[in-house]
C-alpha cells in the first residue's frame, strides 16, 4: 500500500513536470513565434513576391521566373536530393527496364579537371532554359515552357517522338520504356511519353519549394530570378553564378556556384 501511495506521488510529480515542460515548450514556441513573426513580416514585405504569394488559382505569371541556385562548394550529400525527387515523383518503379532505360529527373554528376586533378560533384536536372531547345523542336507543343519559366511536358500531348531528348544539351530527359503502375497523384507518368524534372511544379503551385531544394540542407536556393530582392537574386548578385554550357546561350534557370 505504502508503495502504491509512493507510486501515485511519483506519478503526480511526473505529471507536474510533464505539464510544466509542455507549458515551457508552448511558451517558448509562442515567444519564438512572436519574436520571429515581425521578422517574417518584414522579410515578406522586403520580398515583394515570395513563394507563398503564388498559388495554383493565380495561374503562372510571366512576372516571375523561377530558378535555382546550386552551391556546389557546400559539403552536401546530393544523393539526398535524388532520393527526395524520386520519392516526390514516384520514380524508380520500373520493373522491366534496363538501367540505361530508367527515368532519372536529377542525377549527380562527378566532374574532374584532367589538368589539375580537381574534382567536384553537382546535381544536374532540367535546366529550365529560357530558350529551351526541347520546346523549339517539339512538333505538337507538348514540350512547353510555362509563363513563369518552368519547362515541362504535357503528357496528354506527347506523342513520344523523342526529338526533345535529341535536342536537350543537358541530357535532362527520360523516356518511359514500359507500362507503369502506382504513379503518384501529382506526376502522371506513362509508357511512351518523355518526362523530365518539372521543378516540382505541383509543389510550387501549392506554395512549397521543390523537393530537391528541401532536401539539400540549404545548398540549393529556390526563388524568383525576376525579383531583384529575392534571396536567389541577391546571392547571384553578390557572389555570381554560372550556368552549365552558357556558351549555348540558352539562359538556363538553374545556376551554379563553385563550378
Amino acid at each position, binding site marked *: 500500500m505504502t508503495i502504491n501511495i509512493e507510486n501515485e506521488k511519483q506519478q503526480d510529480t511526473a505529471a507536474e513536470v510533464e505539464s510544466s515542460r509542455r507549458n515551457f515548450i508552448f511558451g517558448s514556441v509562442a515567444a519564438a513565434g512572436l519574436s520571429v513573426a515581425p521578422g517574417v513580416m518584414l522579410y515578406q514585405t522586403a520580398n515583394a513576391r515570395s513563394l507563398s504569394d503564388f498559388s495554383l488559382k493565380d495561374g503562372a505569371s510571366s512576372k516571375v521566373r523561377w530558378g535555382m541556385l546550386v552551391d556546389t562548394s557546400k559539403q552536401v550529400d546530393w544523393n539526398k536530393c535524388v532520393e527526395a525527387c524520386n520519392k516526390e515523383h514516384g520514380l524508380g518503379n520500373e520493373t522491366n527496364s534496363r538501367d540505361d532505360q530508367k527515368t532519372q529527373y536529377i542525377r549527380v554528376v562527378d566532374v574532374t579537371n584532367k589538368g589539375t586533378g580537381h574534382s567536384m560533384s553537382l546535381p544536374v536536372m532540367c535546366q529550365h532554359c529560357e530558350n529551351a531547345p526541347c520546346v523549339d523542336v517539339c*512538333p505538337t507543343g507538348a514540350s512547353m515552357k510555362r509563363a513563369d519559366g518552368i519547362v515541362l511536358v504535357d503528357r496528354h500531348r506527347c*506523342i513520344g517522338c523523342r526529338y526533345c531528348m535529341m535536342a536537350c544539351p543537358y541530357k535532362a530527359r527520360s523516356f518511359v*520504356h514500359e507500362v507503369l503502375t502506382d504513379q503518384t497523384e501529382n506526376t502522371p507518368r506513362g509508357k511512351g511519353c518523355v518526362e523530365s524534372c518539372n521543378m516540382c511544379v505541383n509543389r510550387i503551385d501549392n506554395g512549397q519549394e521543390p523537393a530537391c531544394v528541401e532536401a539539400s540542407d540549404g545548398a540549393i536556393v529556390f526563388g524568383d530570378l525576376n525579383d531583384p530582392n529575392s534571396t536567389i537574386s541577391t546571392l547571384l548578385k553578390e557572389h555570381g553564378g554560372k550556368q*552549365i554550357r552558357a556558351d549555348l546561350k540558352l539562359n538556363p534557370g538553374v545556376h551554379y556556384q563553385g563550378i
Partner: protein
Amino acid sequence: MKKLHFLEVEGNTKGFYTFLGLFGLISVIGMLAAYYMEHNGHWVTGMNNQIIWGTPHVFAIFLIVAASGALNVASISSVFAKTAYKPLARLSGMLALALLSGGLMVLLLDLGRPDRLIVAMTKFNFVSIFTWNIFLYTGFMGIVGIYLWTMMDRPYNNLTKKAGMAAFIWRLVLTTGTGSIFGFLIAREAYDSALLAPMFIIMSFSFGLAFFMLVLIGSYKYTQRDLGDYIVNRLKNLLGVFVAAVLYFVLVYHVTNLYSADHRGITAFILTDGGIYTFLFWVVQIVLGSLVPLGLLYGPTGNNRTMIGLASVLIIIGGMAQLYVIIIGGQAYPMHLFPGMEVSSSFYDGVVASYSPSLPEVLLGLGGFGVTLLLVTVAVAALKFLPASLADAVADPHSK
C-alpha cells in the same frame, strides 16, 4: 524513237502472287514487330535514354531520303526536258510515293504513342522542323500524286512540266527538311554542321536511284519485258556520279569537322576509335557502299546487269551504314556538359553509349521496305506505270 506504250503488269500470274505474298509477309511481320514493341514499351528494344533513336529511324530516314531521290528520274524528264528519261517518269513518281509511305510507316510505328497520331496532325508547333516535315511529307504525297495524274491522264499532259517543276522544288525542300532534323541539334557535335542538309540531298539522289535501278531491272526481268542497254547505261552512269558526289560530301564534312577543334573528338570517334561505327564507316559505307559500286559501275563489268544490280544493292547497304553511323554513332558519342573535363554519372554522362539493335527493331525497319515493295507490286499491276518495252529501239531518242 518509237511511240511509247505503257502496260499494266499481268496480275493473275504465279509470279505476281509470289511477290505479293512475299512483300505482304514482310510487311505483316514488320507490323507485328511494331505491335510487340508498342504493347510492351520500348524496353524490349535496344534503345535507351542515351540512344534515343535506334534502328527503326535508320530505316525510316533511309526510305524517306530515298523517296525524294527516286523522283529524280521524273524530274530530269519533266524539268530538264531529257526525253530519254520520259518512259521512266511514271515509275519514278510512283516509287517516290511508295518509298515515302514505307518510311513514314516505320517512323510512326516507332513513336512512343503512335495512337496519338491525331495529336500530331492537329496540334502544331511551327517552330519545330518536325512540324514542317509533317507538311512537307503530306504535301509531297499530294504534289507527286497530281504530277502522276498529269502524266497518266492524256488531257492533262500539258500540265506535266509545271507539276514536275513543283514536285522537283518540293522534293529539294523536303530533303533539306529531313537533313535539318539533325542540323538543328546544337548540343550534339556530330550534327552541328550546315553541311548535313545538302549532304542529305545528294544522299537522296544516290539511294533513290539505286533503289530505282533495282526495281527497274527486277520488274523488267520478272515480267520478261525488254530493257535495252541505252537506258540502263545512262542511269548507271548517273548513279556512279551520285555515289562519287556523296563521297565528296562525306570527305568535306569530316575535313571541316577536323578543322574546328571542338569537333575533332567526334571526327576521331567515327574515323578511328569508334569501334562498330568506325568499322561501318570504312568497311561498309566507304569500301563496300561506295568504292566497290564505283568499280562495278565504271569498270569492265559496267555493262553487266547482275553487276549493276549488285552495285545498287551495295549502295543501299552502304547508305544504311552511313545513316547508322550518322544517327546512332552521333548519339553514342557523349555530349559534353563540361567541355574538356572528365565527367561521370549514373545517367551515363561522359561515356560512349552502348546500343545493340533488337530483332523487332530490324523487323519493323524491313517491314518499311516490305510495304514499299508491296505498294510497287500492286501499283504496276493496277495502273500503267511501266512501258511495255524499253528496248533500245523504243527508249533511245536517236534510234531509228
